[in-house]
């Protein structure tokens, strides 16, 4: 079993004062897969991967990364991982090539093999033509791509990426997501944190959902959706206040739950096509006009909402 796992996290804890940033997290990541940690800002994702990359010590618990304990053999762990930090961590007064050469040396590469590898990753990130320009002259997306390239120089078995697409243009984001999928195709394991549900949906083989320092769910997307009942989410905006009236909707057959927040009514139902006509009928009978309707198929956003009671971007 151990040979098939890239990461085994066992009851990790880390607090900052009274704040429990990571609170008893356990999960496994298979070799060669993309595992996404999905959660809003402040959920504890960065703290968790800081511990997995041996930058922070755990208060308790342990993790095996590529078979090495983060608390006992941090140097072996570091040798087997490449870390892409959330913020661009490059020397802006150096060119992309100089940055890559420097970081390659920090990973133990030298001479011709290093120069060749730098050429390769520059090709992958599409910056061969501008490799000798200072990083400070690059756009945000270009910096992000160099930021990722640094982590790939030594061909690590595991790449840890902490929200690598924050604050960049759609074109660069697309390029990065494609790069991540290529890494998996090359046999690398990717631990990817994000608060963008659509990224997790597109990339992930397995997803872990974090909130308030806890891992509230883990599994494939299908498993997660199934775990919350595969309900459709129907959001309706009504013409007037709905106190009392919504109670009648809860009695309609096929509706699982009805909640109201800030003028928007959310209805959870297994089959939206079946319940929608009855909602309109009921509203018309009560003299209430439905202004807008939005139907959402079951997805990770819905799973998160169901599990935590709030939206990812709250």
């Amino acid at each position, binding site marked *: 079993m151990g040979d098939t796992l890239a990461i085994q996290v066992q009851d990790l804890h880390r607090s900052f004062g009274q704040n429990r940033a990571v609170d008893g997290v356990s999960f496994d990541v298979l070799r060669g897969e993309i595992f996404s940690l999905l959660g809003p800002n402040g959920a504890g994702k960065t703290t968790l991967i800081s511990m997995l*990359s*041996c*930058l*922070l*010590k755990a208060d308790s618990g342990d993790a095996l990364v590529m078979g090495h304990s983060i608390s006992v053999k941090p*140097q072996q762990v*570091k*040798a087997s*991982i490449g*870390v892409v*930090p959330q*913020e*661009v*961590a*490059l*020397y*802006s*007064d*150096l060119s992309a090539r100089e940055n890559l050469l*420097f*970081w390659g*040396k*920090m*990973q*133990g590469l030298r001479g011709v093999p290093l120069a060749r590898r730098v050429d390769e990753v520059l090709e992958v990130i599409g910056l061969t033509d501008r490799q000798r320009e200072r990083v400070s002259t690059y756009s945000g997306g270009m910096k992000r791509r160099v930021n990722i390239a*640094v982590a790939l120089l*030594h061909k690590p078995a595991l790449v840890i990426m902490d929200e690598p697409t924050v604050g960049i243009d759609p074109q660069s984001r697309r390029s990065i997501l494609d790069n991540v999928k290529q890494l998996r195709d090359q046999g690398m394991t990717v631990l990817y944190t994000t608060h963008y549900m659509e990224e997790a949906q597109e990339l992930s083989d397995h997803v872990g959902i974090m909130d308030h320092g806890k891992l509230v769910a883990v599994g494939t997307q299908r498993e997660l959706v199934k775990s919350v009942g595969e309900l459709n989410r129907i959001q309706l905006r009504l013409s007037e206040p709905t106190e009392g009236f919504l109670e009648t909707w809860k009695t309609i057959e096929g509706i699982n739950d009805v909640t109201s927040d800030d003028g928007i009514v959310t209805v959870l139902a297994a089959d939206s096509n079946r319940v929608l006509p009855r909602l309109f009928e009921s509203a018309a009978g009560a003299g209430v006009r439905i202004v807008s309707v939005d139907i959402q198929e079951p997805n990770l956003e819905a799973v998160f909402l169901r599990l935590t009671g709030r939206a990812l971007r709250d």
Partner: protein
Amino acid sequence: MQALDIALKDIRHSFTSLFGLMFMFAVPLLIVGLFTVAFGGTATSKQQTFSIPVTNVILANLDMGIQAVDLDPSDADPSTTAGDILTHLLSSDELKELMAVTTVTSANAARDAVDSRAAQVAVIIPTAFTRTSMEGAPGGGVEIYQDPTLTLGPGILRAIIGQFVDEFTSVRIMQSTMTASLAATGITPSPDKVAQAVQRFVEETMAAQATFGSVKVEAPPAKQQRSASLLATILAVYMAAMMVFYAYYTGTAGAESILLEQEQGTLQRLFTTRTAPAIVMQGKMLSILLTTALQMLVLMLVSALALGIRWGGLGPIMITLVPTALCASAFGIFLMSFLKTTRQAGVVSGGVVTATGILALASVFTMSVPSAAQLGQRVALFVPQGWSLLAFRQAMDGAPMGRLLTSAAVLLAWTAVMFLVGRARMARRFA
């Protein structure tokens, strides 16, 4: 190897930073330039074209000699008093380039001469000068009444009189020790014999002074200072002080790169690579060390060429420069380990470097007031800059290797303590 890579990357950053270059080289060199403009022409001249302005001294010797001592005047020659000897010394040919001495018979006449600006300094030797000198009273009670705007002339006068009194005191100690020692063995020496012994001691002391010079205003004939003038010596001390101050500034500014990298996220990224954190810190230390050492070498070279400052032999220079560069680097890392942001560092490190620098350099800026300078030298040893300055002064003075090595050892001890504390605190922060 990785430590060297980190060091070279940091050095490159330092040497492409206009601000860094300005404070590492431009500001200290500007100060050297000012020194050069002010004094360079005279200090570098091979001919002794510069001379300290002659101080006009008015001297009232009121010393009653042996009559002021409770002894029988017939036992000694009343015409020979300590005041006479001091008057003779101050009027001697050796000092005539420093002071022109005129004698008067009363204290008031001497003070009036200063008040009327006929003289710049009045030296009033009190009636009991012989006795108080024998008792070792500080300065022998000699009054120096001076033009308050003068510092150098009165300073030299005080030094000469202080040494003169010290020698009188040593005669007294020698006499009493000899009498007591003989008495302990049952011998009671006759006053004549004691007087002869004292006379011989004084003669030999005077002969020794003639050889080595107890009060030297010209450069000692040591090899490395053959052509240095007194002014060049003073300039050298000021230059060393400036250099030490800016070396520690550079050490601190260099260490600030740790906080800067922390804010940029590159330090954390370094700690996620297979390069051990200890190597990362060694690389940081190496870059600060090389930058500081290079800065000092440049300043020493420029000041030697521009001001003719003799820094000492290559060996003493290395024994002084390397521990100073190490200590300045460790000082920076130690300081930064207590700070969290570059913003904090800008304020706090500037303050700490300035405050400790002032403590270290206090003795330099009070050179003309011997008692204050002495206190300043003691206080300076509470900060590492003080030891660096001491080491440079020792190297310039051609001090024995033992003393140089002692100063270097103290600097290395400072280095070890500050580096270990700084490293431990940094390690706690990042792991």
